[in-house]
């Protein structure tokens, strides 16, 4: 019945659409998810190193407290908070809330603000308390 190719319009490619906030939310949700898997490797490293012994743990600690390690941890917390807030939005949408465009846009703005605020607050508390939380 549908063996011959159809001439129905195909979905145009990404760049012809006007960019919307919800597009950024969706893409960032996936991107932060992938980043979280990379960040998870830091936790895996910490656990395996700590279980392996003091020398291995100190090697991990050297990396985690280096500039690169601290930047990775900073990015990891940012990705955690973004994915968390955005994930809660997804759960609310599954439950039938936040489905209109104005609601989605408002939720998106709240997600950005809350995840940035939580990231800065976490590192602020960490740095100002000198690590003694």
């Amino acid at each position, binding site marked *: 019945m549908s063996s011959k190719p159809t001439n129905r319009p195909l979905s145009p490619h990404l760049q012809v659409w006007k960019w919307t906030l919800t597009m950024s939310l969706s893409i960032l949700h996936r991107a932060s998810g992938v980043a979280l*898997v990379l960040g*998870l490797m830091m*936790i*895996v490293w910490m*656990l395996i190193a*700590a*279980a392996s012994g003091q020398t291995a743990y100190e090697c991990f600690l050297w990396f*985690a407290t280096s500039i690169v390690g601290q930047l990775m941890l900073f990015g990891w917390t940012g990705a*955690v908070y973004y994915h*968390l807030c955005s994930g809660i939005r997804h759960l609310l949408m599954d439950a039938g809330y936040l489905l209109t465009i104005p609601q989605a846009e408002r939720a998106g703005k709240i997600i950005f603000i809350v995840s940035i605020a939580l990231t800065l607050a976490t590192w602020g508390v960490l740095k100002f308390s000198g690590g003694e939380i």
Partner: protein
Amino acid sequence: MSQDNKWEDTPFKSPMARARGLGSAHSGVHHWIHTKITALANIPLVLWAVWSVMTLAATGASYDTVRGFFAQPVNSILMLLFLISVFYHAALGLQVIIEDYVHCEKIKMMSLIAVKLALFALCVASVFSVLKLAL
């Protein structure tokens, strides 16, 4: 779309198969449900994990501090729950991303298998490490 769904338009598909709507994979909905259930579990677990990693790794906690941390059953139990829930959620999420963007069937299958095996191995390794630290 029409080319992928040729089978749907033929009379060879039984009404029962059409009603079940499962397709040749015979599954799909459970994937979404498991993603959502682990997402719910992850909300408290991840917040706890951020706090723990911040107090341990980010501040350069000593070897004895880490051992002492996991000697507490509450910390070990929460870390195990975090690892299992997060690794499962990650495996489900990465699977969807690969299925969406990798179109070459061979590379797709290879990456799906590689990602699942790698995540499973890393999960077992970290669970074992927590148990070794705790016990």
